[in-house]
């Protein structure tokens, strides 16, 4: 099924696309049909700079299991950073 669901979040950082590095200002997170991954539904993240147009995008499509593992890894990495670095 097409879930239609999309979570949007403002972010700050950079991503690397086919034309090189660019700043990213927005991310879309959604669990829906992938374009490329061989699964029926995947957790998809688009890192975007809408001001630079639709092609300013770094996209990933992850199985639900992979996405949950990534969430844990991100959390563990931030938790293990030396005190004072994560603000």
């Amino acid at each position, binding site marked *: *099924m097409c879930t239609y669901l*999309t979570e949007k979040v403002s972010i700050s950082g950079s991503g690397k696309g086919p034309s090189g590095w660019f700043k990213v200002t*927005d991310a879309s997170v959604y669990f*829906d*049909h992938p374009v490329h991954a061989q699964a029926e539904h995947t957790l998809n993240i*688009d890192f975007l700079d809408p001001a630079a147009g*639709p092609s300013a995008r770094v996209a990933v499509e992850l199985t639900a299991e992979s996405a949950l593992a990534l969430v844990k890894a991100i959390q563990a990495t931030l938790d293990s950073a030396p005190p004072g670095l994560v603000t």
Partner: protein
Amino acid sequence: MYDAMLAETVTIAGHNGDEIEAYSARPLRPGPVGGVVVIHHLPGYDRQTAEFTRALAAGGYNAAMPNLYHREAPGASPDDAMAAARAKGAIPIPDERIVGEVAGAAAYLRGLTNANGKIGVIGHCSGGRQAFLAAVSLPLDAAVDCYGGFVVGTPPEGHPLHGVPPLIDRVADLACPLLGLFGQDDVAPSPAQVAELAGALEANGKTYEFHSYEGAGHAFMQVDRPSYRPEAAVEAWQRIWAFFGRYLLSS
């Protein structure tokens, strides 16, 4: 048999007469031939749906697929356009706009010199819902709903389609025969929802035929997805050819 066809991106007048992109595939023979509007799924105006459109042209129909995300990202690649539409909060596309884009594609097909004036619509996944939407909104000659979700039932609170009246409530407005192709393992639409829709069609005296395939789930006709079920898909295509042949070939 002369089998040349032309497939190309064209500009059509969509909702409100605005210019949008569409993918057109048509047999290069004098006709008369029927026309089919193809409605893409949520991932967009992609290669797979373009193949679907060309398959209809190879089968003898003028076919056109409006790019439902063209307005959000003109000129972008299909997947970037889908992402842009999501980022702009444009998904789901409002029903009124979808109907307008389909009407524009139908008008484009009716205007082709080899057209017989008959127009069908077909869509898969969310496009299946939109095919049903078009069939209760526009004067068409045939409609095919390939496993469209949210025709029956109310999406939960917080869902983008929550608050949109269920399409099944408009079944009385269906003005053309409907072919439904479903997988028995699907959850949207579930077998119970398919049965509910069939009951509503029956109660309203509509012409329809539904086929639900064992061992098939959602998107069983998508050839490059793990959901592909060749046996069900091949039979479903046979049903499509027979259905369009019955309702779109006579002039």
